[in-house]
């Protein structure tokens, strides 16, 4: 098994007629993801790469039975797109769009929670359960089906880590980029719980970075509730305070959110922390052998 998405996941692409939307819709379909439809207001009735386009998410869901949506619409309209998906009964909403105002994410997230759905992102690369489904913008060729769950706040860094794992013979059950913004949907603790409960996941890699205190809370959570081996990596050890490091959420504010604090928290919870990405497979194998 895998978490959140599998071969039965039925996806619609919001913003499918745009450059990114159409490109990644085709990539997902090529990988074997069931991309059953797309939306673009005013362009209903058309099709993109054989995928039917609808005017509204409601129509798309009714016609296709979609349970998941992926959003590529530009930042000023992304809040509306997220809320539209939740209102139409979509249960998993993956928002790729970068640069969304924080309060837009706050409102959309609260609405999605009210509707009993889950949000991933915004500002994320999506997720993949290798050989089953990919809902995102990830380069699928580096992934390998296996039993390690990956949780990350980053995009290309996740690929770097996955490539290291795959070449060391360590496959993945599901890999998820939770997003680089200060406010995003599913986060470390949610994902740790899902992986802990997933019979097909035997170990977890968690890739954190500076800003906020989610890593500290994750470390606490691991100590109490996660019995599977976990290895961590913390990005941004050399980041100066007060500077936003690309991701809107990667900023050290008045002494809080430093890499040192996060590394210390993981170590205190018995989670080994890699100093560079190529160390992750080594530490993971060591940790697995201890078990």
């Amino acid at each position, binding site marked *: 098994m895998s978490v959140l998405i599998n071969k039965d996941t039925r996806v619609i692409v919001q913003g499918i007629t745009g450059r990114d939307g159409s*490109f990644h819709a085709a*990539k997902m379909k090529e990988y074997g993801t069931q991309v059953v439809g797309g939306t673009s207001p005013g362009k209903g009735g058309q099709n993109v790469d054989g995928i039917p386009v609808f005017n509204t998410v409601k129509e798309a869901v009714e016609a296709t039975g979609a349970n998941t949506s992926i959003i590529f619409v530009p*930042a*000023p309209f992304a809040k509306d797109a997220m809320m539209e998906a939740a209102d139409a009964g979509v249960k998993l909403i993956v928002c790729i769009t970068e*640069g*969304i*105002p*924080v*309060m*837009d*994410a*706050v*409102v959309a*997230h*609260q*609405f999605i929670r*009210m509707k009993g759905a889950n949000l991933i992102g915004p500002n994320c690369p999506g997720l993949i359960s290798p050989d089953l489904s990919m809902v995102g*913008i*990830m*380069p699928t*060729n*580096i992934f390998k089906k296996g039993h390690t769950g990956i949780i*990350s*706040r*980053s*995009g*290309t*860094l996740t*690929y*770097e880590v996955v*490539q290291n794992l795959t070449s060391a013979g360590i496959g993945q059950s599901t890999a998820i980029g939770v997003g*680089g913004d*200060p*406010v995003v949907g599913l986060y470390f603790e949610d994902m740790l719980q899902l992986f802990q409960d997933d019979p097909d996941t035997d170990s977890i890699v968690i*890739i954190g*970075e*500076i800003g*906020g*205190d*989610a890593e500290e*809370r994750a470390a606490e959570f691991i100590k109490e509730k996660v019995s599977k081996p976990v290895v961590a990596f913390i*990005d*941004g*050890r*050399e*980041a*100066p305070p007060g*500077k*936003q*490091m*690309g*991701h*809107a*959420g*990667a900023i050290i504010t*008045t*002494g809080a959110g430093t890499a040192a604090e996060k590394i210390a928290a993981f170590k205190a919870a018995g989670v080994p922390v890699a*100093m*560079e990405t*190529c160390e992750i497979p080594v530490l993971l194998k060591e940790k697995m052998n201890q078990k």
Partner: protein
Amino acid sequence: MKVHEYQAKQFFANYGVPVDHCILCRSAAEAVEAYKKLGVDTVVVKAQVHTGGRGKAGGVKLAHNADEVEKYANQILGMTIKGFVVDRILVTEAAHIASEYYVSILVDRKIKQPIIMMSREGGMEIEQVAKVSPEKIVRVPIDPIVGLPDYLARDAAYNLFDDIKLVRQCAAVLQKLYKLFVEKDASLVEINPLVLTKEGTLLAVDAKMTFDNNSLFRHPDVLELNEPTPEEKVEQDAKSKGFSYVNLGGDIGCMVNGAGLAMATMDMIKLYGGSPANFLDIGGSSNPQKIVEAMKLLTSDKHVKVVLINIFGGITRCDDVAKGLIEAFQEIKTDMPIVIRLTGTNETEGREILKGTHFHVAHTMSEAGKMAVELSK
């Protein structure tokens, strides 16, 4: 994005949050004029800079007559506070303070909602209060869909006041402040201190606002107040070209696709005993023009001795990136050593294309890091 106290007070006033009478001045003569205009005995002369700790630095003075106003204005104008030169001062009517409180609104990343932070310990640095006596800070979450109706605002206000008249006054301040926070996409609104005057009214004696950079596209009135430091200017110019750039002061220039990988690259350089010159995320695509622009940015930093290019070819194929690099460097023409690490889709083909060029080609991130550090010595 930061704004000055006087600008924040203008936003406060526009939304009906009570602020003290104040006049912005750019010279000592203007300050004396302002003093006469305010028509009160005692005023406060305050430096207007984008940093905290103004009081400690001597940038806030109480003046009791025109001579003192002139003297302090002359002292403060031109003063440097944490690297910021003071070119503006605010002359404000000194409030008759009965007691001081702390109020702010911001988004709590953990609960993913706005919160009101309140404390009866006003006038002190809130970080200090949080460290020494965290129990004195109250956090009230706001459901963004419900907002702050009267009963919730009153509920929150009871944390600061016991008398219903003051509770009502404070509740109104909180509601107006929240409206301002939401409508202007602030990332922080802060009143420290919120003063209860001897006359029995509430007054924002200081005002601080910062704004969410992602929302500036819909707030031209806020964007107009943007006053970047020279360092921020470079970062903002980079941003307009689709880059994220932060200068770090070292000698190994970095060009990476993706913010996470860019941070990991600078951390690795340090791990190997080198010194990263910058953080630079050039974003998803790696077309030649983007690489040319990025190289211009890196070489404008005179400390850079070596450039390390670390590209993960995910959707963008490595052979395309390699072709782009060769094309870009025909235009750039530099004799600076360039280390290139390409990995991901079609990496073998990509590296084949770079063979025989003057680039130092690395296979792994560690190898690239070691090469760059070696070349920088």
